[in-house]
């Protein structure tokens, strides 16, 4: 069963009079429970594709369905709702709200969802423990290392059991050891909680962790490889 379906996605940007074709007809099906890397050189369209998959940006043509919902038929408010309940994001940097503690950052999504305060505190603590951040509940993002910040972001992305987590170069700002730690954590969450992950990277070490590797080049899928483990 496919949790995410992209069909003939096209997207171009206008910079003044110049038109940049970021995606030229991308079709991709992501199976439930997948652990998929989107690789490709800089400018190949990874970020653009992830943004469109999560309903942050809209495609010029083509269709995206997340868990059976066609994104092109939804308005801003419905898209927000979809992101709130079905999609988790981990960005390359600036993932966290600076004035909130680690625990509050993780709780925030559940606050938007209307989860009761006691439940949300409990679940946020449990997930922070899972990603190895038991002692840092009350620290602000500025008081956390880069790796710890990304783990908080990961915790926040999965705490509400989304159908899919989209991570745009989650390890790009981390040293390789810390990056590995985060990937181990992601894979553990993928295996334990059956959360589907799609993450972009141009780092070979990161690609090695993926069970499926999709190569983008010039806005098109150049290679799609399912690895045997």
């Amino acid at each position, binding site marked *: 069963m496919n949790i995410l379906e992209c069909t003939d996605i096209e997207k171009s940007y206008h910079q003044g009079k110049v038109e940049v074709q970021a995606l030229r007809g991308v079709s991709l099906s992501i199976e439930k429970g997948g652990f998929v890397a989107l690789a490709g050189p800089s400018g190949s369209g990874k970020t653009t594709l992830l943004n469109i998959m*999560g309903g942050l*940006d809209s495609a010029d043509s083509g269709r995206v369905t997340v868990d059976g919902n066609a994104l092109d038929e939804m308005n801003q*408010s419905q898209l*927000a*709702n979809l992101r709130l309940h079905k999609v988790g*994001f981990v960005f390359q940097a*600036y993932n966290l709200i600076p004035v909130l503690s680690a625990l509050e950052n993780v709780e925030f*999504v559940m606050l*938007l969802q209307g989860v009761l305060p006691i439940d949300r505190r409990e679940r946020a603590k449990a997930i922070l423990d899972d990603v190895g951040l038991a002692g840092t509940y009350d620290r602000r993002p500025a008081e956390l290392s880069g790796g710890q910040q990304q783990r908080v972001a990961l915790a*926040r992305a999965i705490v509400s059991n989304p159908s899919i987590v989209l991570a745009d170069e989650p390890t790009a700002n981390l040293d390789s050891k810390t990056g590995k730690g985060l990937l181990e954590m992601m894979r553990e969450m993928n295996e334990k909680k059956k959360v589907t992950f799609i993450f972009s990277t141009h780092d070979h070490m990161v690609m090695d962790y993926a069970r499926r590797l999709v190569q983008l080049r010039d806005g098109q899928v150049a290679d799609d490889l399912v690895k045997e483990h």
Partner: protein
Amino acid sequence: MSQDTDGEIASRAFRIVGIFRAEMAATEKQFAFVTITAAQQMLKLGESVSEVSIILPMYEEGEQVASALRADLHRADYEVQTWQELLSLVTAILRLYDGFIFLWFLVVFIAMGFGIVNTLLMAVFERIREFGLLKALGMKPWWVIKEVLTESFFLLVLGMVIGNSLGFLSILALSGNGIDLSSLAAGLEFVGMSRVIYPIVHGKDIIMANLVVFILGLVVSVYPAVKAAKFSAVEAMAHT
């Protein structure tokens, strides 16, 4: 020397037993006080008086008291007039002055409106990345609007607390000695104003001013709030 009730010249000499000091020299020049019986004799008034002046505690009460008196004294030979009717020049000047105050308030409130919009827009643009993140996480545009308006609400309440305190403090400080306008006294006498004026606080004015500030503040905050809600998450997150 004056004219009596028969239209004849009436005069008599009085011995000055004292002088009085009034707020204004004009008042001192205008009035000499004699006993009522002496005046009645000199002007051949018998037991009558020509005029009764009533000083009321509040100047706004004039009209109300006058109409009550008119109702009670419905005999045609009494005439009841308020000070506004008797001093129409002063009344006109006061009305003009009220107009100026209104304009002044208008200018101040418009300036305040721009001030609030500016402050909030800056506060919003400063956190454009955070707003982008909130939207990416699934915060609906309407929530963002509510968020910014709530912030503006707290700013307004804080501002009103500080502003009212400062206002009361300055009134308190000035109400002891009043505001001395002696240097302008000659000009002010013309309109019958005293040399020292004292600030008074009316409950109605406080409530009105605060209400206007509050409502105007919230209304103008809608613009930055909508602006914040309209950032697309991608644009906002790309912003550095």
